[in-house]
């Protein structure tokens, strides 16, 4: 089980993510806030291309979530 224990790199001091960078992780809570309270978006209107709000709102949040994870990735790597 300890077979890989020998390959520790020597970059440990510099590679540890800075505390301030890790603050960006809090952004990942936004999609949960946006999607876990359905009364917020369980509406028929307004429509977008004939699609009720309930459906396209969640579609928009899929795109925003992808954007947020990308942002957090760029800020913390």
């Amino acid at each position, binding site marked *: *089980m*300890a*077979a*890989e*224990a020998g*390959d*520790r*790199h020597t*970059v*440990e001091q*510099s*590679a*540890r*993510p*800075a505390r301030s*960078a890790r603050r960006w*992780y809090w952004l*990942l*809570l936004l*999609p*949960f806030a946006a*999607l*876990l*309270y*359905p*009364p917020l978006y*369980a*509406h*028929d209107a307004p*429509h977008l*291309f*004939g*699609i*009720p*709000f*309930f*459906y396209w709102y*969640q*579609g928009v*949040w*899929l*795109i925003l*979530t*992808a954007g*947020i*994870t*990308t942002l*957090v*990735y760029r800020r*913390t*790597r």
Partner: protein
Amino acid sequence: MDKHTVHPAAIVVFCILFVFVTVVGFAAARWRKADLGHLNEWGLAGRKFGTWLTWFLIGGDIYTAYTFIAVPAAMFSTGSAGFFAFAYTTLVFPVLFVFGPRFWAVCKRHGYITAADFVQGRFGSSTLALAVALTGILATMPYIGLQLVGLKTVIAAMGIPGDWPIIVAFIVLAAYTYQSGLRAPALTAIAKDIAIYVTVTVAIIYIPIKLGGFGHIFNAAGSALPKRTPPAALVPGKSAAYETYATLALGSAFALFLYPHALTGALSAGSGHAIRRNATLLTFYSFALGIIAIFGYMAIAAHLKPANPNFTVPDLFIRYFPSWFEGFAFAAIGVGALVPAAIMAIAAANLFTRNIYKQYARPQADAREEATVAKLVSVLVKAGALVFALFVSTKSAIDLQLLGGVWIIQTLPAVFLALYTRWFHRWALLAGWAVGMATGTIMAASQSFKSAFPLSIGSFKVTMYSAFLAILANLIVTIVLTPITRRLDGREPVDETADDDYLDVNAESRDEPGLIPA
């Protein structure tokens, strides 16, 4: 469209794609050649996959044939309630982003192959590891069975009667998984995903044109759904519906990456960064899933009357596609059954080999013996799933799949939360797990395996996903008991992992230069 006639062109195209995938599956053994007699190679493909292969593999792994059949079926019969699958596959990515790289890093550092290996190392408890391993195997089995149900559905839709096609498919699948290990589903996933994307793109453009646009599709669904028994809605409107929707989305998002097949997919990545990038890139699949969900409403707008809801998508494709393209689309779904079924069987075999066979029967087993056992067990697991698909009713298969979700989320504290804290005590974790498993199973069974459970304590009434309520019970028990059991425990085992082991930036195989933070 109750009876399906034989569609020769569809069958020919289906068979051509199937043979192609079989050849790829066997050839995969020679791809990135390594010693497949070692479990790290057979069961995790050497943990070397870059961002794109990981994308195909995890995408092929978690967006399964059953998903493509079941989600539109749920939309067709229960309306907006079925759309939680979309919210859930959005929320799963922040979860993957946070926990995935840490899990990958600690497993890489210590050579862990399964979640139970990690639990064993972190808490030094083989009993807790056994509980995690058994939960994983138990939750995976019906999932594999449902993949076969998905395959059976498309084959039946082409007018081929009988069980022999899925028996043939599974002998072929078992053979190439035995030979190539995780390399086989990784390569076949590429073919599967391309076929799925082509099908979805064609369908989302062509069918709405034929049906008179999205406005008409949603209007048709809006007027048909309230007439269902029980009445369904285009947009949820009751507080019980809100609670169920939100807890299903949240519970499923946390459950998904605890499944052995999803963790196996993540562990095969070559770096933590490959996993982080995938937390963004995998959203493409969720987009496709959202479109596939709407197929359920297209079927309503087209006035289809499928023999059972599982035929919603097959009947829609039969109605609108020429026969040869129908065969292509069904092959996409069919291969979409084989990819996850292979990964699930490998993951279950890894668990059995590492955490049951090696732990309890043959502690002296070396990596070579582990690989041999895992290969054999992967065949047994598939045989079990085949028996399951042939002799267990589809209804029971779906019920067991629901229970699988209720069960697997009970490993959350010992696996995901333990990536961040060693505060939990092993006995408390075991007690919490037992309480969660029992209450979750009872709640699900008491509602004849509907996912929502109406909980009332005095004047407090909620209707929530039973897995969500069960994991709350689990967490409460674990947190309350931890200080008590720790005091009772004279000699707590040492944690073999160190804080730095969880940081993937230190680990090997960085697949990009300049990752040191600025």
